């Protein structure tokens, strides 16, 4: 049977990744399904519940989600030889999942906006009153990680979110919506994952992306093999591929920051070491997820 990949990468990116893998492994055919993380998870959960998970490999969202799967015993441990080229914080010590890239969350602003923000704190300034929007952690995995990350930073914390709320910021939907809101001028500033505004800016959209001085949060789109994988061998080859230099170059071409050490950055990004990635502990983030969601909802009034 074909190798089945469930991914939340955008369509074209998923296609490119799969094409690259199949070129490197001509004997393996890949069927892939892509959707937003919540839907992929719903599908996967239902399959697991029905006793017949179809997927072999997951390439989705963030380490928190995979950590959850790992704890539920749904993942298979595999020690990839490529792991040596990765920062230890970017993969699971037991080999259950490996980060593949860094998707950071920074600030987007409309080029016609009066204020050019450089730090998170700028968003709480009076000039930005009512003009800030952000994805909701309830919809976007990246947004949840982002909130949990900033909440743990000294000087920001939940107080920062409270300040934003007091300044009229809204929390809405996913990242795509933020891009549209800011690009269309409905809002002036937003929190958003890096690649979207950078790509759109290249196409001419009136937006600018900023890596704030305090640092950015990052999700790492980890790859993992399901414990129930029917094509475990092919799945392992897939993991090796996305971690390999070739696989990582593919991500760079698509405009992502690669997770592997010693890679070039895609165009439009500042140098890798100028990007300060704020740390997050997957295990504790997982433990606190429910509480954090409640806190966030408490601030933004939703459930």
């Amino acid at each position, binding site marked *: 049977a074909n190798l089945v990949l469930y991914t939340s990468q*955008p369509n074209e990116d998923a296609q490119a990744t799969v094409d690259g893998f199949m070129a490197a492994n001509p004997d393996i055919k890949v069927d892939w399904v892509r959707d937003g993380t919540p839907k992929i998870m719903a599908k996967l959960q*239902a399959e697991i519940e029905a006793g017949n998970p179809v997927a072999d490999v997951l390439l989705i969202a963030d380490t928190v989600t995979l950590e959850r799967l790992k704890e539920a015993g749904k993942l298979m441990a595999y020690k990839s030889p490529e792991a040596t080229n990765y920062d230890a914080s970017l993969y699971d010590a037991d080999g259950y999942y490996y980060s593949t890239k860094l998707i950071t969350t920074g600030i987007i602003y409309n080029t016609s906006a009066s204020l050019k923000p450089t730090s998170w704190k700028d968003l709480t300034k009076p000039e930005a009153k009512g003009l800030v929007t952000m994805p909701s952690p309830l919809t976007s995995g990246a947004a949840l990680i982002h909130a949990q990350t900033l909440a743990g930073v000294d000087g920001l914390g939940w107080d920062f979110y409270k300040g934003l709320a007091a300044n009229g910021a809204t929390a809405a939907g996913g990242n795509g919506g933020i891009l549209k809101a800011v690009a269309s001028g409905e809002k002036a500033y937003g929190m958003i994952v890096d690649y979207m505004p950078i790509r*759109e800016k290249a196409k001419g959209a009136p937006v600018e992306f900023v890596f704030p001085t305090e640092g950015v949060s990052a999700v790492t789109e980890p790859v993992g093999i399901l414990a129930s994988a029917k094509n475990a061998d092919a799945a392992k080859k897939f993991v090796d591929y996305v971690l390999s230099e070739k696989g990582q170059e593919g991500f760079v071409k698509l405009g992502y920051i690669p997770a592997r050490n010693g890679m070039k950055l895609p165009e439009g990004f500042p140098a890798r070491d100028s990007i300060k990635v704020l740390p997050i502990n997957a295990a504790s983030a997982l433990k606190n997820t429910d509480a954090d969601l409640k806190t966030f*909802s408490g601030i933004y009034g939703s459930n």
Partner: protein
Amino acid sequence: MYGYVRPGNSQPAWLFPFIVLIVLILSVLPLARLAMTGVAAFANGGAIAVLSDPALWSATYYTLVTAVLGTIISLIIGCAFAFLLTLTDIRAKGVISFLFVLPMMIPPQVTALAWVQMSGPSSPLLKALHIAPPLGSPQPLYSVGGIALLYGVQHAPLVYLALRASLMSLPRDGVEAARLSGASSFRVFRDIILPLSLPGIIAGAAISFVSSTGNFGIPAILGIPASIYTLPTLIFTKFSAFTSRTFGDVALLSAIIAIISVAGLAIQDRALRGRDYRVLGLSGATATFELGYWKLLFAPVLWILIFFMLAAPFFALVAGALVPAYGVPLTFKTMTFQAFSEILFTQAVTRTAFVNSLSLAAGTALCLLMVTVLAAYALTRRKDLLGRIVASVIEIPYSLPGIVVAVSFILVFAAPIPLINVTIYGTVWIILIAYLSSFFAVSLKPVVSAFHQLDPALEEAARLSGAGFFRRLKDIIVPLIAPAAGASVILVFLIACNELTISALLWSAGTQTLGVAIYNLDDSGSSDLASALSVLVVLMVVFMMLLLELMAKRLPKGVVPWRN
């Protein structure tokens, strides 16, 4: 003894059991499977915790309020169009009703976004009028009212189609008798036409209400920014967290939606009781009211509504497809057909999606037509409790968000089907079955209300002619309810063509649908491609509707809803 039937039963003995079987497969099986999983998830407690969560109750409240308001709005718009277009001498009826059916083809998210833009600070329209709110002003559509308004706009065509079918069978002489009694046009309308078309109106209201309780796209875009969660959006968030309780939560939330829609149906049932307004003798020739000077008022109102419901979102789509990037102002210089050429000639998925969606939609519409006519026949002739239960069970899947339906079907079909040992999961068949389940209610409503208006003597005459069940179904009943059947087929086709959430979970390689393709493009930031594809879908539908128009002469009278 052979050939005898129980008294009071004009239907073949197998008919009702057959309908029950279909309903078991399409509705009961997946729902029961979900409920089982839910119960298992709650086996070690937890239901209380969920039930005591205030979020649940505020979502229930918002679901109800938005659905009720939305239903009212869709009733107002849909009824206005149906009455004006079927009963009056307003000009350009054909064109208007043709256009009025189209908004259903524009995904709700697109309509919502278009409206947000139209009413927001960057609205070209408001800017031109110099009344655009300043950057950062609160968006008025991010509110209960906004959600309800969009529900209303989105579902008005459903009301229109359901009501039109029932207006087609108004008795002409009854209207004339009222006029001769001295009743003005308005009184005739209020005293005769309105009550006689009530079954159609109620059917439309029920479809609209049930669609609203299950809608995800609109509250997702308009509700979440204002922290207004409805049950479908709440369910959606539950799926993003993978916990052992997910299924329990989802089953519980789904149950609440089901209860709401069944309650809505019970109200409908009550409202319909004693309104078995069989039209006696001949009917069909519809009454025409002369509007006179009122035309000057009504015609512009209809066109303005069409503009906001169809033209504005459609132009937003076109504009979105022609700009090189989001937010770039559209001028002749910036305009590019890049997106269209990419979609048409490069993206392999386009063709697959068109083929899949068209065959799924056509398959669903036709299968449902057959089942629906049988079911409507069986259900209108059966007034007992069992009949009512079956009727409500049919409604439930449509009232649930697509994601729940999809999950239920995955639960049922992910493993090979026992006995025959075939896996349909991952094939188009599972999508087809899920569509059948979900749109059964849509297709049933107009047909049932048509049956309510049928003079029973017409069928009796056919029976006495010796026509057995299928024979009279084909020769007499179906042609007589053709307007409703046509409405039903077209409704289902249009909705299925554009469907997203069900297929989003059920598709796999090679079985993408148009909805999935558009959503995926949009979600990955290629909103230009998504818009281009949406524009193509709308054009395709227009094209098909034109084809239908050409064939209209060969179809039974009244089938094509934009023809009089």
